[in-house]
């Protein structure tokens, strides 16, 4: 704090902040397109195929249309909160990208509590959704947002169990360090036990599989995807908390949903699937081109994340939706006890 405000620092921070945004928007556009195309394959349909080559510009056109739409604020709505809600939701999902380890070189903020930061920042999304539901002055919205709040808060607990289990093994909250521990080959990935644990890995592997599934399920619930998409269950609550939103505000909700999908996939990847590490060696190391390595790492991270997003899409189009009490039952009666047992088991194994 001795230096005065430095322009270059500021620009650097800005650059760091813009990189995720430059990624989120094209990703969301392509993810929506992928969602529609994959669902079309699953359902024997063609999917979007008119706008641009094989319909690639469909979502771009949709966004352009949404921008031109009239911005409606319902009469009974609480105007300030109503306008604030989509922004808060988007901030929540955007800020999560700050801790995602895209490569060993670039990470938004390399803070030591990266994991906890991601969990904490997802609370923004809850707040935003409650704002949206409350401010809309619509019964469906308020029910959707209440469901969402209950769901998100509940499913943070199994997520945290997984996180402290991993912490017990690695002593790390830093996502980059976590990724660094899974280096060199596929057997060092989190799901196969981390590097340098020796015989304990054999004891840990089955538990780690379970933990990965718990983390995947609970993050699925946190981003409100099928089978946990109750807050926006279209056959019950019309569109849930964003029923009253139109135009660009709706687009922001939409955007943050897809941004969130990738963020949680990134989290699962960083924990269990080697983060940005290649499952085998790097081409850059082989050729002696050290600048190639980070690029490969980005590609690996994106590939793993997008694959998980595809799994989410696949699940959405093949499963029905749970009911509220069943959703809570899955969390409190199954995920949390199993997560707890896994945590105890891991601490015992690590103590040995």
């Amino acid at each position: 704090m001795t230096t005065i405000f430095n322009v270059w620092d500021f620009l650097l921070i800005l650059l760091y902040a813009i990189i995720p945004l430059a990624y989120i928007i094209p990703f969301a556009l392509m993810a929506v397109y992928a969602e529609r195309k994959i669902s079309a394959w699953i359902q024997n349909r063609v999917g979007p195929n008119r706008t641009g080559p094989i319909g690639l510009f469909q979502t771009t056109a949709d966004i352009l249309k949404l921008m031109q739409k009239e911005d409606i604020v319902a009469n009974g709505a609480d105007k300030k909160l109503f306008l604030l809600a989509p922004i808060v939701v988007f901030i929540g999902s955007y800020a999560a990208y700050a801790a995602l380890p895209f490569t060993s070189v670039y990470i938004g903020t390399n803070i030591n509590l990266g994991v906890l930061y991601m969990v904490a920042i997802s609370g923004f999304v809850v707040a935003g959704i409650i704002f949206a539901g409350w401010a809309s002055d619509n019964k469906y919205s308020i029910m959707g947002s209440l469901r969402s709040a209950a769901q998100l808060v509940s499913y943070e607990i199994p997520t945290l169990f997984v996180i402290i289990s991993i912490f017990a093994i690695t002593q790390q909250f830093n996502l980059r360090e976590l990724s660094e521990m899974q280096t060199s080959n596929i057997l060092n990935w989190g799901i196969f036990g981390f590097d340098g644990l020796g015989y304990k890995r054999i004891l840990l592997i089955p538990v780690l599989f379970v933990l990965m599934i718990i983390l995947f399920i609970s993050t699925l619930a946190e981003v409100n995807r099928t089978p946990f998409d109750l807050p926006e269950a279209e056959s019950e609550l019309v569109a849930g908390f964003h029923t009253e939103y139109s135009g660009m505000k709706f687009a922001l909700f939409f955007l943050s949903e897809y941004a969130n999908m990738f963020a949680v996939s990134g989290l699962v990847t960083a924990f269990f699937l080697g983060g940005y590490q290649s499952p085998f060696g790097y081409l850059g190391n082989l050729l002696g081109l050290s600048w190639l390595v980070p690029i490969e790492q980005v590609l690996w991270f994106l590939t793993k994340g997008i694959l998980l997003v595809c799994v989410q899409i696949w699940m959405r189009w093949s499963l029905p939706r749970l009911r509220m009490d069943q959703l809570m039952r899955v969390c409190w009666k199954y995920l949390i006890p199993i997560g707890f047992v896994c945590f105890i088991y891991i601490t015992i194994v690590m103590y040995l």
Partner: protein
Amino acid sequence: MSNTITKNLKTDEMILNMGPQHPSTHGVLRVELKLDGEKIIEAEPHIGYLHRCFEKHCEALTYPQIIPYVDRLDYLASMNNEFGFVLAVEKLLKIEIPERVEYIRVITGELQRIASHLVALGTFGLDVGAFTPFLFTFRDREKILNLFEITCGARLLYNYHWVGGVSHDLHPDFLRLTKEFIDYFRPKVEELNGLLSYNKIFIERTANIGVIPVDVAINYGVSGPSLRGSGIKWDIRKNDPYSIYNKFDFDIPVGQGLAGTLGDCWDRYFVRVLEIEQSLRILEQAIAQIPEGDVTSAIPKRVKPNEGISYARVENPKGELGFFIVSKGGVQPMRVKVRAPSFVNLSVFPEIAPGHMVSDVVAILGSLDIVLGEIDR
């Protein structure tokens, strides 16, 4: 401790108007729900948003002119609607129908039943959040509609069954294509079972939900698959055979409470799945037996029945469809009253809904398989 909290906590009931514009009320139904949190205390359906004065129109039209209007009652099962109406008029006229016509009516009726059940199963999946089975069933329904299209040119509203006959004979390829369809379609039912019927989440959502006990079902006049879902072997095709249904060998599937309680949503759903197989069996037999003949010979030049009343009923995909006609001897009926199965089936809804959650409302409505065109007429 917890008691004092709940005692002092001020909670309020919420009135939620589900509909008339709502994605899963199958049209323009409004259900007024009194909620305690997500739990339903009271549910009252309000209907009439699709009222098109069918019964008033009938009083100003001649009998053959009414048939196209009949199509628009349960627009997912137009063939069966026409079947019921022409039976009622023929009962008044006391005319004999050529055998080929009877077979054609049965074949089209059973194809229509499969089509209607496919929509029911698909939209039920949609109501509980499974989107994909919906498009699978619609893909197969499309094939049936193609068959209807080559038969009478229309895909949804046919005006095909006429008093005393049918408007055209079958297309020369019709029987062959129907046979092909049966062969194609049989395995698809298994596909649907794998995707939806035995899905764990789907069973969780539908088993033990919306149970209609046997006595309530009978007292409320529930009919069709909804009644059979409660375990009663009651099918008008067997119990009060009309047309030539007594010539065919088929079973009446009933609910057995396989997934949960007898008479729950899953039972009603699964009865429909099993009925598709029975309809296929009837179709096979009918195609094998259908005789040659003239289909328009018995169509009367002028439909002018004597004074009297007649009530004819058919087993519609939704339930028992009846037409009650009062004739004063003119070319127009004096009164036509429709016993709409969806109307009667929906009337049991306020009885079974309380105690369930909001999500279950759509499951119950979906399993009753209502069509608002028929409820509001």
